[in-house]
């Protein structure tokens, strides 16, 4: 087991390295000198002279050879220096500390929601196979898999506006500052994203449960006379969890990506909207380090999934 975990960890590190290389390559090919854009979206034209451009360029280290730039970047990250937003001179770590909790909140809530909704529906659907309950849940599942999350978000906002005359809040409010407003802000996106993942979870749970229901050990339990509910709880559930965990891991990727569009639709001031704004303004440093953050988070989540999976199914480690 330990070697397996070590293996996975090392593989994760290598993957992380690959991630940084990928980002580095992508950002250096960036067309349009980021320093050429001296017009901020709100203000007048601020024109830098050639000298100032050169100064900025060397300050950012854009003149150095690639390997040096890469090394410098990695060192900075290791030291916790995530650089500054070019446009706002704001340290990116501040940005992450302020907006990260909002995005994280939404992601965690979405995953929890997906378990709470998806698993029961999946099991129910499998146990009551081919009944009306099954059909309804399968229709719902198919629908929510296909629906784009950001459209659902727009619909929710539309509904809120037209029916309740409610509009999303404009400023960041952390949970510990003002729970009521914070929940208002994060609940919508969490539900919308959660439903999408719940659908996938339900689907996965259903097929996993069906497989297990026909497995030998379940038949044995039934033959022994164990009540159906106990059968499900004791034997089926545990084994159905495995694919659920896998799906959740994969879903997290979709979540991190989809949350960008959903945040934008709701107007939530999270990391996703920061990324989109940075993209629009070609705020190079922000794009680079935020994407890195997403990549790192995702890699670690995958690692965690692997570990959890191994814990749930020891066979994995010995394959």
């Amino acid at each position, binding site marked *: 087991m330990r070697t397996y975990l070590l293996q996975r960890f090392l593989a994760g590190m290598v993957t992380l390295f690959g991630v940084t290389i990928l980002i580095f390559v992508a950002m250096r090919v960036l067309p*349009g*000198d980021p320093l*050429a*854009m*001296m*017009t*901020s*979206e*709100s*203000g*007048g*034209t*601020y*024109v*830098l*002279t050639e000298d*100032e451009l050169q*100064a900025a360029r060397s300050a950012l280290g854009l003149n150095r050879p690639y390997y040096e730039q890469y090394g410098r970047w990695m060192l900075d990250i290791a030291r916790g220096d995530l650089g500054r*937003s*070019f*446009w*706002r*001179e*704001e340290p990116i770590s*501040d*940005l992450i500390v*302020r907006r990260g909790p909002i995005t994280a909140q939404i992601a965690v809530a979405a995953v929890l929601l997906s378990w709470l909704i998806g698993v029961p529906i999946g099991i129910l659907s499998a146990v009551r196979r081919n009944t009306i309950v099954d059909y309804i849940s399968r229709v719902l599942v198919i629908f929510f898999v296909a629906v784009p999350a950001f459209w659902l978000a727009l619909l929710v906002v539309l509904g809120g506006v037209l029916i309740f*005359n409610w*509009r999303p*809040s*404009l*400023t*960041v409010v952390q949970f510990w500052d003002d729970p009521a407003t914070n929940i208002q802000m994060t609940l919508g996106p969490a539900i919308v994203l959660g439903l999408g993942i719940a659908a996938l979870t339900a689907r996965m749970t259903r097929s996993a449960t069906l497989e297990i229901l026909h497995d030998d050990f379940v038949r044995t339990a039934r033959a022994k006379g164990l009540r159906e509910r106990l059968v499900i709880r004791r034997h089926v559930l545990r084994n159905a969890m495995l694919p659920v965990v896998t799906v959740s891991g994969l879903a997290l990727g979709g979540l991190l990506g989809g949350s960008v569009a959903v945040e934008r639709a709701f*107007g939530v*001031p999270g990391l996703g909207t*920061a990324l989109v*704004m940075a993209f*629009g*303004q*070609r705020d190079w440093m922000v794009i680079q380090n935020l994407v890195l953050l997403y990549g790192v988070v995702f890699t670690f989540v995958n690692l965690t999934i692997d570990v959890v999976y191994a814990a749930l199914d020891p066979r994995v480690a010995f394959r």
Partner: protein
Amino acid sequence: MQRSSPASRVSRRRFLRTVPLMVGGPAVLLGVACRQQAPTGEVKPPAAGAPAPTSGAGAAPAATTAPAAKSPAVAPPAAAAPPTAAPPQLVATTTTSGAAAGSAAATGMMRPTDGTPKRGGTLRIAGGTTTSPHFDLHQGATVHPLTHAYNNLVRKDLTDGLRTLIPDLAARWETSADNLSHTFHLRDGVKFHDGTPFTADDVVASFNRILSPPAGVASVLRSQLDMVERVEAVDPRTARFVLKHPSLIFMEVLSQPAMVVYSKKAIDENGGDLRKAVAPGTGAFMFKDYKAGEKWTYVRNPEYWDKELPYVDTLEMIDTPQLSDRGTAVLTGQADMTWNGSVDTWKEGQQRKDQITVAQIPNFGAHTAHLNNERGPLGDKRVRRAIHLAVSRQNIFKAYENQEPIFLGRWMSYASPGSPTLDEIGKLPGYRADKSADIAEAKKLMAEAGHPNGFGPIELLSATAPWAAEIMAPVFADELQRTLGIQTKIRLIERGLLIEEYKKGSFDILVETQFACPIADYTIAWNDYLKTGGSKNWSRYSSKEFDALLENLNNESDPAKQKALFQQGMDHLDQEVPFIITGFTAHSPMWRNNVKGLVLDKRVYVEWGRAETAWLDRA
């Protein structure tokens, strides 16, 4: 076993069956879709009846021009700059005991006239984008979130709608007989937020930094102070500006929101570069917090030299890039006011008179189409004049009306001094609604220039922002094509990258909002955009005649003669047409009825600036 195995034979067949389908289908789509790339602009039968292109979304342009364009519009009968003997209302008494209520403003103490101000509360402004590249106003930081912490030497009166020039840090001033020397007597007992006392040295340091910045420090305001020869401190309470030539716009330039006074201490301590942090000011509000892309927070300055102001305890500026978000914020009560809301929210606000008040104030920013005077057919001024005559401004306004209010302007805002009235402009060729004679004349000019049937395709460059890409650019292209047969190909690039194109001059036509002026008097803009080699002369227009006119204009000190020169200039420009002005915009502020003291509905021009006279009528 292998060659003729039924498996491989059949599967190859299946392969060959599916591949063409998989490739052919998308290929057909490809061919069809590629045709769809450029807007065809063909009008299907029932779609007629509405003038085709041109309406721009207002978010970007309004916000862009706003900070740069805060200047007194002097259309109403305000006095321009002080002549030799300062007119009575501009000279304060020297007593510090405060004058009678009527002349309170004369001492620079602004008092609201819409009721008895109540104290306290938080004023929340849905400001627009509050992101700023940095915090140094003299190096181009976004003005409206920063200006609250500072004072100028002089400013326009907030309580009479920005009509009168009143003292700010300069309690009174005198001008020499030859109009070259302006002496400012500074207020006593003023302190910066960090406790440093305010003296003439601070004025000198601030303005010297603008006039001759140290290395590594940009100075975006320098060109506006071209007329200044030097600044000096006569004594700790007196600063003097010596001009190179008399200037009618000098005092106005000093009054615009970006011309704040920084402390010498802050300048020295930071090597002349105040970008990193909000430097202490003398203003009514003290900077408290800034969350990038979200909110600025200011608190009341209890030591402000005007003991009565400000009335509110806290000032918040919320980042709302979208115009409609700003209006919505006011409508839903998430904000108390906005400098500029979207048309639909503004109209809604108009309906809700019991909660909201709205206004429309002229701005000093224009929508333009820059024509590259150095390239191709556009280099011929007959072609340019033809375009000016043929393009229908009214069509463009109709297209744009859901984005922003937009009006005619003849080489300056309709609210600038020297501008004809909107009615008068609306009678002139090129500007008038009835295009028949103008188009005929335009066609003649095109024929003379050798393009009787138009020419093209030439490239029409525009930002990817929806107002430009979906409205302004297509409408303009359609007008050109329909009236004169000029074919254009629209190319979209990100707004931030457009500046490279300006500088390189690699465009034919560029649709942008590039004709802004920081003050009402458009002399500054004429110098920037129209003088040979001007810093913003993107069209690369060059005329010795016009340059000479500009010289006279810059040195003129008689308002009547200035007006005549403007008239001459406008006539000249209508003939030479360096670029096309589609229209000048107005801003649509909205505020909740309990916000008082700013007199936004009486303002003669837009200023996104200080708000220390605001008070909240709380129950």
